[in-house]
């Protein structure tokens, strides 16, 4: 079974602007699934629906289903906090919370009620290693997270999500503010991570999409235009609009 399935999903913001129209997607496990397209295509909006961060947009309405392992996230009894730990999001702007590196990494765990110090320490180390940050910060876990460089901050945010041991990681343009070297480091870690996690990502560029994707969906004006495996989609797109975008004719 696909880990995420989206069925006939519509989403409208409070101001009446229709952000998503009739989305249908199936995202398989342990792959990097890329959502790409021009800005305002609805990529981030769609991702936020996967773990109901969309709830933060007041008075927005939706129709259709988002299924995680076959369970609808909009089902009334859903524990949205548990959902967000299982489908964890990393944002475009790396945003450490005030406090130390260690505090950041354990925040989600503590909020879930975890008290076990040893388990927290184990997860801190493991998540930092997975995000390729352990060697750089292992001696200063108690120092402020704001002292890190931009690239380190973004890897910290990734590690913070990983510490929750989620099923899916949502990456919303995680390399937008980063230099090429940091970008490479983050991308590098993605190949490792997909062995354990399912990754859904909005890439920084078509090039990045093509580099990292196993499967990709091209979005435009709130619709999914085309979904396919990366090999096919970036080389032989079926849709004219996809081709125009990939070859740089608009976007």
């Amino acid at each position, binding site marked *: 079974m696909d880990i995420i399935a989206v069925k006939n999903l519509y989403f409208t913001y409070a101001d009446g602007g229709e952000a998503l129209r009739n989305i249908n997607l199936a995202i398989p496990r342990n792959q990097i699934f890329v959502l790409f397209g021009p800005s305002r295509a609805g990529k981030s909006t769609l991702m936020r629906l996967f773990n109901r961060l969309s709830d933060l947009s007041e008075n927005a309405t939706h129709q259709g289903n988002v299924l995680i*392992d076959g369970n609808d996230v909009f089902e009334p*009894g859903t524990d949205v906090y*548990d959902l967000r730990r*299982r489908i964890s999001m990393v944002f475009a702007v790396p945003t450490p919370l005030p406090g130390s590196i260690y505090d950041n990494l354990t925040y989600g765990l503590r909020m879930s009620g975890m008290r076990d110090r040893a388990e927290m320490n184990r997860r801190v180390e493991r998540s930092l290693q997975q995000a390729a940050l352990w060697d750089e910060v292992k001696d200063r876990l108690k120092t402020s997270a704001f002292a890190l460089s931009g690239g380190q901050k973004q890897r910290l945010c990734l590690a913070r999500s990983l510490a929750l041991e989620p*099923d899916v990681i949502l990456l919303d343009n995680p390399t937008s503010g980063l230099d090429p070297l940091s970008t490479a480091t983050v991308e590098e870690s993605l190949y490792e991570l997909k062995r354990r*996690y399912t990754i859904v990502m909005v890439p920084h560029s078509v090039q990045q999409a093509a580099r990292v994707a196993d499967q990709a969906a091209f979005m435009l004006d709130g619709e999914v235009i085309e979904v396919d495996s990366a090999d096919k989609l970036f080389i032989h797109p079926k849709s004219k609009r996809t081709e125009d975008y990939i070859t740089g004719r608009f976007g």
Partner: protein
Amino acid sequence: MAVANEPASSPLATAPAPGRRWGEVIIESIIKIAGVSVIFIVGFIFLFLLWEGLPAILDIPLRQLFGPQWYPIEEHFGLLPLLFGSLLVTVVAVLIALPLGITTAIYLGEIAPPWLRDILKPIIEILAGIPSIVLGFLGWIALAPLIQTMGAPTGLTAFTGALILAYMALPTIISIAEDALYAVPREYRDGALAIGATQWQTIWRVVVPAARSGMLIAVMLGIGRAIGETMAVLMVTGNAANIPAFSENWLFSPVRTMTATIAAEMGEVAQGSTHYHVLYAIGLLLFLITLAINSLAARLIGVSGGRRSRPGGSL
């Protein structure tokens, strides 16, 4: 706990984890109750004033209540002198404070160099922080003798009170007028300056008219501030509950305001007496006047417009 490298097959946890969430439900309920408590407090204050003030309105013939004689000892409870006192002092105070306040706001907002503004604004904030009793004390001990030397029979006059009230209302007037000026779009100024107007012409013909409604609010809140002030006017207006004859110089006659009357007499009345209830009725009147002024100002400002926006929505 989901083990990440095995296919997660557990269904999404339904129902919030018990125990931990109960505390939250209680706290959030408390917050919601506290949130609306101010409505009840205002309502409660109103009902209390009404409860204690109503007997006076019912007991005393209206003709006497709005008559010109305030002699509580002889059971004469005519509010006219007190209304007159409050009105005179407030109007004069606002007439003094308004030109001073608005000019200062324009000076601070449009003309003063930043370093000077950084000095002047804290000083004006200090004025807002000076207790009214201290200003009343100074008015009583230093200003009143000064005014007496200017030829008045006594230094404790409506004018003395109005002068002190004017300064007390200044911080309010200045800060609201400044906000109003600040809200005038940059383009208005640039446009006027671009067609060759001097800075003064720009201010006088463009900026000030554009800030008109804000100025109106400044006036209203200034009035609200002045009419409710108690201790300073109690000390410096001479506390004579009479209406000066037309021939007299009103401004330099002693008067007594509604607020001062309550402050001066409440300590000496018997609970439940007519006098006691009349003082509550005066309180009720003050409450209603300020309620009207502030509600109107709030409507003009738009502060009563529900949820304040925060960029990016909310939780």
